């Protein structure tokens, strides 16, 4: 229980902050966000399987290999391309389900939905993978890693919005690859970068968070401006 609270407290905090900062005219579609949260939870299963395959069955085990090139490749493949894909795929499936059965997604709803997937993903990752760490470490991950996952998902949400607007699949790939690249750089710095860690980590945090906030700021609460209801 303590681990769950220590690992997941920040997800609720950040979700609340994002919610409060955007939904001023309309009622937030809580049910949809709950579905996104479930999607985030489910996405941890294939992501964990994918990571385990890379770590246990290939030479790209970035925690063990002494070959830096293989380690970097493993990081870009497993946490980078892998985790970002499973998070994005889970969110996309939720989006597709909504669009087939209900009204289209509002832009803010889409971005916050993706962010919810990332927040839940980061929290579950904290609870499952880092439960042996001490409380301080979990709190730190809650402050840095959990919102990082959310920011990556927000970048991917931007790709989906651009994809719809431009009627092209390229933005989906482009923003996904950008998120995977940033995630990879982040992990490289945190795993290997003893000398660059001091510079890259704070700079990376600021850059990624700023990007996410700019994305969040750019999406309107409602595309039509009318009051949306989810009841």
């Amino acid at each position, binding site marked *: 229980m303590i681990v769950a609270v220590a690992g997941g407290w920040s997800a609720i905090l950040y979700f609340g902050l994002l919610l409060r900062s955007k939904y001023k005219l309309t009622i937030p579609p809580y049910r949809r966000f709950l579905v996104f949260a479930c999607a985030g939870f489910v996405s941890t299963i294939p992501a964990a399987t994918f990571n385990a395959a*890379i770590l246990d069955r*290939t*030479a790209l085990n970035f925690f063990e290999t002494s070959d830096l090139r293989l380690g970097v490749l493993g990081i870009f493949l497993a946490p980078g391309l892998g985790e970002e894909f499973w998070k994005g795929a889970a969110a996309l499936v939720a*989006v597709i389900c909504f669009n087939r059965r209900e009204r*289209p997604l*509002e832009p803010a709803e889409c971005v916050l939905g993706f962010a919810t997937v990332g927040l839940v993903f980061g929290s579950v990752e904290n609870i499952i993978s880092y439960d042996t760490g001490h409380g301080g470490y979990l709190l730190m991950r809650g402050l840095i890693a959990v919102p990082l996952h959310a920011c990556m998902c927000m970048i991917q949400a931007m790709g989906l919005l651009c994809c719809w607007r431009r009627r092209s699949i390229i933005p*989906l790939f482009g923003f996904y690859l950008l998120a995977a690249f940033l995630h990879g750089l982040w992990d490289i710095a945190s795993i290997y970068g003893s000398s660059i860690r001091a510079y890259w980590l704070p700079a990376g945090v600021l850059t990624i968070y700023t990007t996410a906030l700019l994305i969040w700021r750019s999406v*309107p609460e409602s*595309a039509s401006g009318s009051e949306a209801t989810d009841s």
Partner: protein
Amino acid sequence: MQDQPKQYAEMPVLFVLLMGSALIVTVCLVMEFLPRPISLEDFLDAPPPQKRSLLHRLFSTRDGKSALRNQPDAQGPQEHVTQTQVVGAAAPGELQTVSSRDQALFRQAHMAHQLLVRGFGHPIAEAKRSLARIPTAGSFRAYEEMRFHNDLVWMDLPFTESPAILAELDKNSRWLVNRPEAFFEDQFHAGLGALNAGNATDAIAFLQAAMDAWPVADRSYGSVHLGLVTAYAADGQLQPVLLGLEDFKRVYPDWLYIELFSQDLAELHAIYGEAPVLCILRARLSQLVHDDKTALALYQRGLRGTSQDGVDVVRQWLAEVEVTKPR
């Protein structure tokens, strides 16, 4: 972003399918071409229950530990230890057949895989792939891999016997015996390789060196003895054969199970021709197990072609057979 564009479902679906397939294919390729290297300790220590391979099931003991583990004998110094067997007897406590603990573990892995290949029909290629994943820093790798390969060829010899295979065995065994890691067992194999390749003189030299270096008088020592006596017989030297047969029963405890080696001895005629001394050797071995009919025929064949010193002893053996021969 103010206007709500149409939210196509096809493109996200396409993205998920394409990217998902690409990732799965990538992981499969990486698993195939960049498999995870395993340390010798990982390889030999018992893995978690859900990952138990046939190899580890095979070697699991009742207390749940694996028999595939660091043996106390292998806990020697990491640095190189002189191969004393090539030049003489090993000092007490000195490693007998390996130069380091890593080499001992590496060989243990090889032997385990040999068992899998022999006993359970595992493909050799798969065993080699598995062994190739074990990282070793020692210079013994090439030597150990050739030993593994050569041992498997030896095991397959009864099924795949051909001049090409025999030549390969001879060549590989000679390569092994010239390596700095070589020890008495390699000399034994080199002797057998030379014998089967038709070079009895070299075989005698290798087998004599193996006998001199062999550290214990065990069953394998008896096999070296039989090999040496056979090499002398193939070379046509009667006196050493008679000498070797004097205490044959004591030195070679498996003399009773003649079916284990009689066929191999008979097949040497295809290489060495009539070889009368070889006939005499085969006759005496048959006589030991009271196969007097075979012994009689072989003695007569052997005595027709030799008139060396010691023939009297052979005639005496023949007389014993003639007394007891079946009607």
